[in-house]
C-alpha cells in the first residue's frame, strides 16, 4: 500500500503536477476535465487509465495528439470498464510471476465514461467489473445526456429535460422518465465503495477519490458534470451550475460503503430551491410555461423525498 497524498487545503493541492493536458478539444467550460484533474491529482501513484467513447475520449486522443500523461486506452463505447479490468488482471498476473518492469510501483486503475456509456450501453460491462470486484475505479462523468453525439437522451436524463430524442414541443415537455438510480444499482453489487461527487466540492471529491484508491476492490464514482453545450448555459457558469446541483440537493453528495452503509457527506447550509437550478439551464426553459409549472413542483417533491430517503438510510446505519 502506498502512502496517501497529503492534501490539507487547496494551496497544498495546487502543488500537484497535472497528468492531464490542455489543448484538448473539450468545449470551453467543460466540467469533464475539471473532474478528471481532481481524480488524477488525488494521487501521486502511477495511473493506468481507460475511457469509453464519448466527449472525454474523442477530445483527448485525436491523432496525432494525446492529452494523457499516463498510459491510457480506449476501445469502444461500452467497454472502458472491462478494458481496465483486463489491464488490472494483467498487472496481477505479472506481479505473481515477477515480471513487472517496475515492481515497486502501486498503480491505480481508473476508467472514465459518460452517462451514455455507463447508464446505458456499457451498463452490463460495468456491472460485470463491479461484481468481479476488480481493484479498479469506474468514474461516470454524468452530464445526463449523450453530449458527444449531439444531445440525445440517456437513461440519466431527468424528467422535463429537452433532449434531441425527447424534445420539448407544443405537446411535449421533453423527457418523461426519471433518472436511473445508478448509485443504488452499483451499491447493490455490494462493492466496497461507491460515492457521488461534484467538482465544485473538490475537498469532498478528493477525499472520496483517495478513499477509493485506498480501497482494495471495485469502486464506483458518479460525478455530476454540468454541460455548457447541452444544458445550455454560459461556459463561465459551469461551477455555478455545479453549486446549484449540489445545493438544491438535486445532486446530493454521499457515499455507500460495502453496499449498505450510507453516509451523507455534504449538507448545504442554505438549500436552494430546485426551481433555481432548473431556471439556470436552457434545457428546462419550457418548464416555466404555465402548463408545465406543476412539473417544477413535482421536481421539488421528488428531490425532497430522495433527500429524506438518504437521511433515513444514513440514520438507520444498515
Amino acid at each position: 500500500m502506498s502512502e496517501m497524498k497529503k492534501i490539507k487545503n487547496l494551496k497544498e493541492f495546487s502543488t500537484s503536477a497535472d497528468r492531464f493536458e490542455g489543448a484538448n478539444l473539450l468545449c470551453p467550460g467543460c466540467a469533464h476535465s475539471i473532474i478528471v484533474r481532481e481524480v488524477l491529482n488525488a494521487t501521486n501513484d502511477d495511473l493506468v487509465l481507460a475511457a469509453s467513447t464519448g466527449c472525454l475520449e474523442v477530445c483527448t486522443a485525436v491523432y496525432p495528439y494525446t492529452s494523457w500523461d499516463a498510459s491510457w486506452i480506449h476501445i469502444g463505447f461500452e467497454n472502458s470498464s472491462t478494458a481496465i479490468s483486463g489491464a488490472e488482471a494483467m498487472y496481477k498476473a505479472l506481479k505473481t510471476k515477477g515480471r513487472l518492469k517496475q515492481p515497486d510501483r502501486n498503480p491505480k486503475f481508473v476508467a472514465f465514461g459518460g452517462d451514455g456509456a455507463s447508464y446505458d450501453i456499457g451498463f452490463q460491462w460495468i456491472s460485470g467489473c463491479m461484481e468481479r470486484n476488480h481493484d479498479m475505479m469506474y468514474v461516470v462523468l454524468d452530464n445526463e445526456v449523450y453530449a458527444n453525439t449531439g444531445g440525445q437522451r440517456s437513461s440519466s436524463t431527468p424528467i422535463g429535460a429537452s433532449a434531441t430524442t425527447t424534445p420539448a414541443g407544443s405537446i411535449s415537455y421533453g423527457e418523461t422518465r426519471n433518472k436511473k438510480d445508478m448509485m443504488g444499482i452499483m451499491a447493490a453489487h455490494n462493492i466496497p465503495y461507491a460515492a457521488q461527487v461534484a467538482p465544485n466540492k473538490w475537498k469532498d471529491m478528493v477525499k472520496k477519490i483517495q478513499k477509493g484508491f485506498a480501497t482494495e476492490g471495485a469502486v464506483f464514482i458518479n460525478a455530476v458534470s454540468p454541460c455548457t453545450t447541452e444544458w445550455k448555459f454560459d461556459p463561465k457558469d459551469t461551477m455555478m451550475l455545479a453549486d446549484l446541483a449540489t445545493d438544491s440537493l438535486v445532486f446530493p453528495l454521499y457515499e455507500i460503503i460495502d453496499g449498505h452503509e450510507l453516509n451523507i457527506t455534504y449538507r448545504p447550509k442554505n438549500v436552494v430551491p430546485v426551481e433555481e437550478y432548473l431556471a439556470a439551464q436552457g434545457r428546462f426553459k419550457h418548464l416555466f410555461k404555465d402548463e408545465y409549472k406543476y412539473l417544477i413542483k413535482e421536481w421539488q417533491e421528488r428531490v425532497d423525498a430522495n433527500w429524506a430517503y438518504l437521511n433515513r438510510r444514513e440514520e438507520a446505519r444498515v
Partner: protein
Amino acid sequence: MANTGWDEFEIGAMLRTFDGAIEDIAGTRQEDRNYSPNSSFTASVADWRIEKPIFNKDYCIDCQFCWIYCPDVSIISRDKKMIGVDMDHCKGCGICVEVCPTNPKSLLMFPELADEETEIASWPTKEEKEK
C-alpha cells in the same frame, strides 16, 4: 507530420506522451518534462478564444480556486502561488474569473486583442457591497 506516409507511423496508431523515459511523472513539473510532439501540451488552442483572462497579481490572494476549477490546466501555480495564465491552452471560458473571490477580482475577461498593461493600469476598483 502532415505529410507522413503510411510507413512512418508507430503501429496501431499508438502515441507516446514523452520523448524518452520519465521516472516520476507526478513528481515532475510540466516545464521539466520532455513532452513528445504528440502531447497536446505542445499544441495551442489560443485561436479558440474571443475573450481572454488578464491576471492582476496585485489583488490575488493565492486561494487557488482558479487553479482547481480551470478545465484547461491553464492556471500556472507554483509553490502555492498563482503566477499566470497559460495562453496556449486557455480557451477563454471565463470560469477563473467567476470563481475568483477577491474584490476587485484579480482575473477579468477582456477582448482577445486587449493590451494587458493598459487593462491592468485601468483595473476596476473595489466594489462597494450594497447595503
